[in-house]
């Protein structure tokens, strides 16, 4: 387990926003712009926390989450889902797949950083 936080979002602006805010709080960041890249980086860095956008083209956030949960080497990784879909059914699906936290877009960067901090400190 490294001190790394993985951030994945297909929208460059959001990706930059999240990484900028998290870096300011002192986190070490690896970022991915699609699901496949995110999974590859996760396997390479075994991050403590992964911030995954749900709505990515190709492999979406939920699929990445499922792959992480299926990988024993990543058992310690805490996953936070970011989504623009606000429906209860989506939230439930996220938790059922094994998400640790859920943040809806649009989000307050400070609040997101706070949630990441909680997961980071709680992670083994």
């Amino acid at each position: 387990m490294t001190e790394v936080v993985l951030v994945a979002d297909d929208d460059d602006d959001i990706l930059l926003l999240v990484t900028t805010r998290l870096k300011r709080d002192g986190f070490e960041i690896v970022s991915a712009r699609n699901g496949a890249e995110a999974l590859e980086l996760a396997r390479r860095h075994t991050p403590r926390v992964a911030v995954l956008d749900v709505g990515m083209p190709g492999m979406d956030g939920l699929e990445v989450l499922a792959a992480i949960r299926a990988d024993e080497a990543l058992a310690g990784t805490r996953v936070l889902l970011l989504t623009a879909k606000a429906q209860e059914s989506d939230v439930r699906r996220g938790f059922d797949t094994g998400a640790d936290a859920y943040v809806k877009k649009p989000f307050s960067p400070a609040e997101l950083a706070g949630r990441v901090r909680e997961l980071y400190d709680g992670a083994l």
Partner: protein
Amino acid sequence: MGSWRSRPTELCLAAGFLATAVYFAVPRGNPQSVIYDVVGAGSAVAIAYAAVLRRPSRKLPWLLFAFGNLFFAVADMIFSVLVDPPVPSVADVFYLLGYPLVAAGLVLLLLAGGGVRRLGALVDAGILVCAFVLLQWVFVLDPIVDGGGSTAEVAVSAAYPIMDIVLLAGLAGFFVSAAWRTPAFLLLVSSVVLLLVGDEIYGITPDSYRSGDWVDVTWLLSYVIWAAAALHPSMRELSEPRRRPQPRLRVSPARLGVLLAALLTPPVVLLVQDVRPSAPIEIPAYVAAMIAISVFVLLRLVGILRALESIRLRERAARADAEQAQRLLSAQNERLVEADRLKDEFVALISHDLRTPLTSIMGYIELSLDDELDAPLDPERRSYLEVVSRSSGRLLRLVDDLLFVARLQSGRLDLTRSRLDLMEIARQSAEEVRARAEAKAIEVVVDADEPVPIEGDRGRLFQLLDNLVSNAVKFTPDGGRVELRVSRDGEAILEVCDTGVGFTEEEAARVFERFYRTEAAVERQIPGTGLGLFIAHAITAAHGGQISAHPREGGGALFRIRLPLAESTA
């Protein structure tokens, strides 16, 4: 239909009955003749006067009646002057001139009423006439022809029953087609029937008649009632084309009775003649009458079958039309459902795509405003960014509302229920709005002193309260007061009241409608979409509760929500 009451008709009938009574009281001869002539001439004058007085749309039929009766009256006078009238006499000329006139009057009335266009009515009249012709032939005409005498005698004697046939033909057509029950119609038919009855009695027993016999009463009353008919106001309706066409297959008991009697005439007459001693039985006459009647009955049957067929066809066409309309409607309905679904998808998609750029906007503004930044912003730029921040917040709210409404319309509202405390929710909502309220120096007060447990969706209930409390702050001028009251009374009750611009009673009934905005809100340009209260109403209803809006005295609004208490405490 009209009333029976008519002063002229009543006077005419009273005078006529009196004259008839006097006629039989005075001795035979000249005194009787004078009364008889006065009644006849009076009738003719009264009818002519009525035709002018009542102004029917067609005056001619009534003038024909007047002249017909005048000729009858003149003939009566000549007849009474002649001591021993020969056959034929000058009187016969006038009598025989009268019949075509009155028959023509009847036919004209029939034409004016539009009855002639109804084949069924004409066929019925034809059946009646056939039966009558047979009767005339057997009982009146045949004896005259067989009785011998000069050609002139026979011709004139036979002319009367033939004229009666003409008259009856007119009457029959009139009888089966004209408007029923108007007093003038019934009086007119009665008078013609009386005339015919008198003629028939005379015709059957021509040799035993003497002036002053009781049979005179039929002719006298015919004159009187004819004039009474003309004087009645409803005589105008007789010459009007009927406005409402009667159903084609109308079969009244009276008409059926008359037709049945006509149909039974040949066999009954045959029987009567068979029973009467030495009465001649002329088979060709019966056969001719029965053939004629059969042809008419056949025509009538064809008419009825045709009518049935056309009704059936019309019904089938109507059913086909209805089915076609149904198909169109359901196709249209499918398109509407599809359009509705597309609209919802569109709104959901747009809302989703609006959220992503909004995330960037709001996130980067927050980053820029962050106090920990190395280079702090100068106050002016900071205030600009705060405006952008507030505006994005409003935009986000609008997008959320639209998304919510779109979802509401495409399906029901899914609730994730849990046990909640309404007091706690009210306190938190008040806290969330406090910063905005303080900026306008509005006091936010929560009046609640015990937990009020309910079952509900936490997120939705916060949304509901946030809508109401935000509205209260938005619509309340600076320095006002917003109060949240939570209580229980068999139900959980939450009230949100303010000292804002409020609304009228009429508006209160409509504030929960989608996109509805009060006049005050529009006038003061208070921003809003008219969705907040619609959403509040939907959320309350989904929780099995009620929401109501009330204007407060002295300005301001009061919203009251009633929700079911959590079960174990209800």
